[in-house]
């Protein structure tokens, strides 16, 4: 599969074979991501890292990925002081960055910003999140985490928990998991249920998701529990919010009923969805999941820059 020059905008732009290729290559990156091995396959390459809104985890893992392969990074971590603040269009900023570097990572508060950026750049553009839109590298690192922890993605019983209505990244994940043929259970408060279009997409791929609001029942058969953040602003008042968040808190009490090898995932940052007492249990993989952003992004950067040399 030739990824040279390819933009990474939405997970839906990729076939299962292509996703498999990326995941296999990311696995080879693991010792390099941990710093156990070093090969400067991206030496001489420059990455523009343009964060029009802050996202520390994503930005640092992209920068680590580029540095671990011997490449260099230019850019900004938030837009204050940039020419965009002075009214420059995204298109112009992209044209400039494109001429200064070999690839561009862009994070932007507006949906579709990465797709637009790709139109104005000759080099590859990697979407690091566009508002409530797509976040394909997150989706890939989630798949990678399930694959490395569970040895395979197929046939796992996976719970997606939390705000399933507004969380677009969880929509992409539901779609991507359906490509692999898993058992999906959606657990959310009634007001934050998975939209019908997403459920239809899963069904078209042959997956019939179960929907429930009871986490206690769902957890017994689960292999993977993927929790997402429930945002306060989605609720009319604090009382309602506290009630919902309280009913979905993941703690050791809840996990007593779970399979021994259940893994708990979360894209982070967490607020109160997962109790810190879970951190020291073998269920907790969310920090590993965050680390997995590095090998996935190493794989993507070397692939789109046409340097598949590991």
């Amino acid at each position: 599969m030739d990824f040279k020059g390819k933009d990474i905008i939405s997970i839906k732009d990729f076939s299962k074979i292509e996703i498999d290729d990326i995941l296999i290559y990311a696995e080879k990156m693991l010792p390099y991501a941990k710093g156990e091995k070093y090969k400067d396959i991206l030496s001489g390459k420059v990455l523009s890292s343009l964060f029009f809104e802050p996202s520390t985890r994503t930005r640092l893992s992209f920068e680590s990925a580029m540095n671990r392969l011997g490449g260099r990074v230019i850019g900004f971590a938030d837009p204050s002081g940039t020419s965009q603040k002075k009214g420059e269009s995204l298109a112009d900023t992209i044209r400039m960055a494109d001429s200064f570097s070999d690839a561009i990572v862009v994070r932007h508060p507006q949906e579709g910003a990465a797709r637009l950026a790709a139109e104005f750049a000759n080099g590859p553009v990697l979407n690091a999140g566009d508002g409530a839109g797509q976040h394909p590298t997150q989706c890939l690192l989630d798949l990678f985490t399930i694959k490395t922890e569970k040895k395979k993605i197929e046939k796992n019983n996976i719970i997606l928990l939390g705000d399933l209505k507004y969380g677009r990244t969880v929509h992409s994940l539901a779609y991507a998991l359906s490509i692999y043929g898993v058992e999906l259970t959606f657990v959310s408060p009634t007001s934050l249920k998975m939209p019908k279009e997403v459920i239809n997409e899963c069904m078209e791929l042959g997956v019939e998701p179960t929907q429930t609001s009871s986490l206690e029942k769902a957890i017994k058969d689960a292999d993977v529990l993927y929790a997402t953040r429930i945002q306060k602003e989605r609720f009319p008042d604090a009382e309602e919010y506290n009630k919902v968040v309280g009913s979905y808190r993941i703690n050791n009490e809840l996990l007593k009923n779970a399979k021994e090898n259940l893994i708990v995932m979360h894209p982070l940052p967490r607020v109160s969805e997962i109790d810190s007492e879970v951190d020291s249990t073998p269920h907790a993989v969310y920090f590993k999941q965050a680390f997995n952003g590095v090998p996935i992004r190493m794989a993507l950067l070397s692939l789109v820059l046409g340097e598949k040399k590991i």
Partner: protein
Amino acid sequence: MKKQLKVPGFKKKDLKIPRIKDGTVIDHITPGYAVKVLHILGIPRSNSSSVVSVAMNVNSKMGKKDIVKVENRELKSNEVDKISLICPKATINIIRDYDVVKKFKVKLPDEIIGIVSCSNPTCVSNAKEPVKTRFKVINKDPLRIKCYYCEREPEDIADRII
């Protein structure tokens, strides 16, 4: 014998619509949409001297309709197809020397560029960027379009004409 095509909108009872010698008649426009149709088609062009006549709420066998006549200009299929967004039943009549020489229905293109604005206020296509709005037609009947940028589907398409 050459089939005589009937030129719409000039039977005796609606003589108020002038006959045209050469040009295009857009017929069966959804009533009330004639002005929107002109707007979408960019008619009249700023430097053009062609006469354009508009008739609204004209009675016909199929109920009320609007009609637009553009003199001395033959509109091509790919120019007019975009009006199918709001007038799926519109027909185009090309007139030469008072005769209809060609008649065709508008058909929906696969992509709608620069005609409809995205319903998502935080879509990048609604920001001040040098791009036209762009939608993929994902279903023709009922009409469903999806924003190329933010991947959302606006529902109130007729009200979103730019």
